[in-house]
């Protein structure tokens, strides 16, 4: 009896310790999990900073005046040098106390008087005012105004946009038509042709660069936009592949019903397939636009006359000639990058879908 009671008690204790043990291990697990989350955040913040820092430096440098860019140690945020005159007799400012707000390359300065009622000149030579230097935080926008006039920005933007838009139209038209033929119409040799189209994806551009160039020379198209835009109308293997895969998911019944109603293949393409494929087409359009905007080798090979340069080419040429004008270079780079980033923020979902789709090919 007593033995049994004792054993029961023992059992009871054992069970309790087991419960406690679980509670303890739960607490440990929770602590471990919190630690893991902490480490994750720590890594994310460190890496996030590392990945964002170049952008910060791009914008920061673009807003610094030339004399404060190549200095050691560098300013983290843009600073500028201002000159404050002491109270003194000054021939050109009639002794008034002024602050110099802008120093011109020819050592004249633009001044702002400290007292109201000042009637003297607004621009005087630097020696006239015997200044004390002081650096303060401030933004220098002249890199943008100078940089964008140095390279004929508006003209290059126009050239780039013309090429981009034509490429988008051409790619959407040609790739969707070919993809339709490869997915919705049965014909002999279709599979073989599809394989041939796919295999051209393996061909790096450099391999066919010279013969293609020879063709465009023969056509007399060098130094026009034609070599950069016409190929878009001849299809792109990868986009044909993407659109074909998408068209395959559209039920057959739809096109068959339309055929019974007397629609031609082109009607089906235009009225059924295209409206149903808007997400896929948006993706192809977006990628084509990005590709044309970023393209460097194409314009480098085919465009000779400076008035036909695209933004990428113009920026590279600017770097080649004025490699030390970092303020202006950063300003122009910022301006070339911003449209792409804005485009990304408005089309994030399409964008990310596109990339993950390329991965699914694996």
């Amino acid at each position, binding site marked *: 009896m007593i033995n049994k009671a004792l054993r029961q008690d023992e059992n009871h204790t054992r069970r309790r310790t087991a419960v406690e043990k679980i509670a303890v291990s739960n607490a440990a697990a929770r602590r471990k999990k919190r630690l893991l989350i902490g480490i994750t955040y720590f890594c994310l913040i460190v890496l996030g900073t590392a990945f964002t820092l170049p952008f910060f*430096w791009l914008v920061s440098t673009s807003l610094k005046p030339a004399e404060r860019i*190549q200095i050691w140690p560098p300013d983290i945020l843009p600073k500028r040098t201002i000159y404050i005159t002491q109270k003194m007799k000054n021939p050109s400012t009639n002794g008034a106390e002024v602050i110099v707000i802008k120093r011109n390359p020819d050592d004249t300065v633009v001044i702002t008087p400290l007292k109201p009622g000042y009637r003297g000149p607004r621009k005087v030579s630097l020696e006239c005012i015997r200044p004390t230097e002081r650096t303060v935080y401030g933004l220098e926008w002249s890199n943008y105004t100078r940089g964008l006039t140095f390279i004929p920005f508006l003209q290059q933007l126009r050239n780039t946009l013309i090429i981009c838009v034509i490429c988008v139209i051409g790619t959407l038209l040609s790739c969707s038509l070919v993809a339709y033929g490869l997915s919705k119409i049965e014909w002999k040799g279709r599979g073989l042709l599809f394989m041939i189209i796919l295999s051209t994806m393996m061909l790096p551009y*450099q*391999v066919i*660069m010279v013969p293609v160039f020879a063709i465009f020379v023969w056509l007399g198209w060098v130094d026009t936009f034609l070599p950069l835009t016409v190929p878009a109308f001849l299809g792109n293997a990868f986009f044909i592949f993407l659109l074909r895969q998408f068209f395959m998911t559209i039920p057959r019944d739809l096109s068959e019903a339309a055929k019974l109603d007397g629609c031609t293949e082109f009607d089906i393409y235009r009225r059924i397939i295209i409206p149903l494929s808007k997400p896929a087409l948006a993706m192809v359009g977006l990628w084509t636009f990005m590709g044309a905007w970023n393209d*460097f080798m194409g314009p480098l090979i085919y465009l000779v006359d400076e008035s036909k340069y695209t933004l990428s080419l113009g920026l590279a040429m600017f770097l080649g000639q004025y490699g030390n004008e970092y303020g202006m270079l950063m300003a122009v780079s910022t301006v070339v990058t911003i449209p*792409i980033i804005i485009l990304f923020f408005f089309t994030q979902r399409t964008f990310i879908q596109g990339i993950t789709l390329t*991965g699914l090919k694996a």
Partner: protein
Amino acid sequence: MLKPPVWVGLANYRTLFRDPVFYTALYNTAYYAVFATPLGMLVAFLLALLLNQKVKGMAVFRTMFFVPSIVPMVAGSVLWLWLLNPQYGLINALLGVVGIQGPGWMSDPKWAKPALIVMSTWGVGGWMLIYLAGLQDVPQDLYEAAEIDGASVWQRVWNITVPFMSPHLFFTVVMGFIGAAQYFTQAYVMTNGGGGPVDSTRFFSLYLFQNAFQYWKMGYACAMAWILFIVILSFTILLFKTSARYVYYGGER
């Protein structure tokens, strides 16, 4: 513009195989491929693993890591040329803070290729997204089972995540090597088309381009193009032939 072609037989190939710059270009491209691809994969994989943890603010971090990869290549190159400036660049400034005298980067033949590799790591956002999508397909119950069996985080990643991700990893290896063979814009822009210092960034595609459009040796460039094509083709075939050994397609076979 172009002289009419003349039949020269295999003369271009003979010159090519005796051209020391050709071998330098091959070496530079191989160097870039061998270091940039695995490094990029490692960083992208790490970022994807971090983003896959279910913590708040993921969308913000994802954008932070992805946006560098869509910066126009020329603008990115100009920016990095400035970041890598030996005297006044941000990178050497940061190295200076921790007491390291930074190298000359793009002005030092030893450091020019590593500089380009570091720069390429900045643009791995696309691969990161591919991995992130792949991570969604890894069965979660396997992790729970492994955790009960007492597997460490590292063991779980190596024995569960990596095998399930092998198709995605394989895809990026192939893309990385093909991309390395075509590596051109950054090298051209950052060296003003020269491939300097001392040929250290004269990559295969850059040398091909120079032969075609700076020296106007079209036949020679075409010979190089054939070599490039054969190298890429054999590499891809080799990778695909051996892929059955290390790529796991969700037990379909």
